[in-house]
């Protein structure tokens, strides 16, 4: 297998005039997409920009569009995504491209904060540590979403994000949902206000691309559905008061 060459196309955007975009990369066993990109940068074109850190699917920094699908490249075998022996690798969708395969993640993280994806503590260091019941339904709901690695794959997969620049996106809304269900978090009103505004959970059309492509098998679509229910309940309750 090692003798075979892979035909890799790198989508370097409209400013790539004169830059090489097609590369022949020697195929190897157990080769990830990130291995391929790294090979290109180390052996063919040192100017190629991309981003990675941990290489084991924990840091969430290496996500790219691979064959039109957002993926974590360090945990994606190239053999799984090849069309014949070719594939196109591009920067994540829905985020501004800095250069080549590196995107500006600022909008993604800004929305994380805008969705109140921050801890709203109610205790001080002098209080005893709160006991968390791992079997409580709310805790089970929260646990379902806490393994998010902020890779932005769901954000890149979402057509609602493409259509509405203000939409907070699946990852941020899912974090809001986990915090809403977290017994230690006391930001309920702030979270519900943040996720029910113009860019909030009600923009979601339940297309399900977030859930379909989450590399950690999380389910942001259902988390957003939970937010829709809670914001609606809270709306009717406030109306009665």
């Amino acid at each position, binding site marked *: 297998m090692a003798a075979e060459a892979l035909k890799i196309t790198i989508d370097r955007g409209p400013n790539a005039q004169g830059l090489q975009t097609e590369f022949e990369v020697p195929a190897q066993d157990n080769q990830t997409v990130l291995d391929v990109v790294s090979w290109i940068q180390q052996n063919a074109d040192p100017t190629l920009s991309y981003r990675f850190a941990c290489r084991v699917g924990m840091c969430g920094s290496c996500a790219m569009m691979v064959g*039109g699908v957002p993926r974590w490249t360090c945990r994606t075998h190239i053999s799984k995504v090849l069309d014949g022996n070719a594939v196109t690798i591009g920067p994540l969708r829905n985020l501004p491209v800095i250069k080549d395969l590196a995107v500006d993640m600022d909008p993604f993280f800004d929305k994380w904060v805008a969705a109140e994806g921050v801890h709203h503590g109610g205790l001080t260091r002098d209080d005893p540590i709160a006991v968390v019941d791992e079997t409580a339904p709310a805790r089970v709901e929260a646990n379902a979403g806490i393994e998010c690695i902020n890779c932005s794959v769901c954000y890149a997969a979402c057509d609602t994000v493409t259509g509405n620049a203000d939409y907070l996106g699946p990852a941020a809304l899912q974090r809001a949902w986990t915090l809403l269900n977290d017994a230690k978090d006391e930001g309920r009103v702030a979270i519900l206000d943040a996720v029910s505004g113009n860019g909030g959970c009600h923009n979601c059309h*339940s*297309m399900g691309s977030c859930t379909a492509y989450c590399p950690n098998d999380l389910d942001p679509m259902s988390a957003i559905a939970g937010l829709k229910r809670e914001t609606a309940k809270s709306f009717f309750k406030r109306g009665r008061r």
Partner: protein
Amino acid sequence: MSMTKGITSRAHPLWLAYILHRVSGLALALFLPLHFWVLAMAVSDPARLDGFLHLTEAAVVKVAEFGLVFLLAVHMFGGLRLMAMEWLPWTPPQKTLAAAATAVSFLIAVLFFMKAI
């Protein structure tokens, strides 16, 4: 832009269920004014309405009716699916539900079609 070129990330059942729901809704919205216009003839011009109703015996109209019932069924089940998904705290595979909704819609449309011909 090259970013929108070749987005294959839409090729999954839930996205297809979403687009089917939207397109069937649009098509039904376009059909409704025509529907009401024909119905209004019952009051304004009954003879012309009878002429119109004779058209329903034509094969092409029967095929169109099949499409109409399919759109109605698909839109109704798609809407029920969406409401169930968003209002009932279900976690199990919605994909199965979406596929089942489409299958039931198709079944109803086929039954209607068989009866019509």
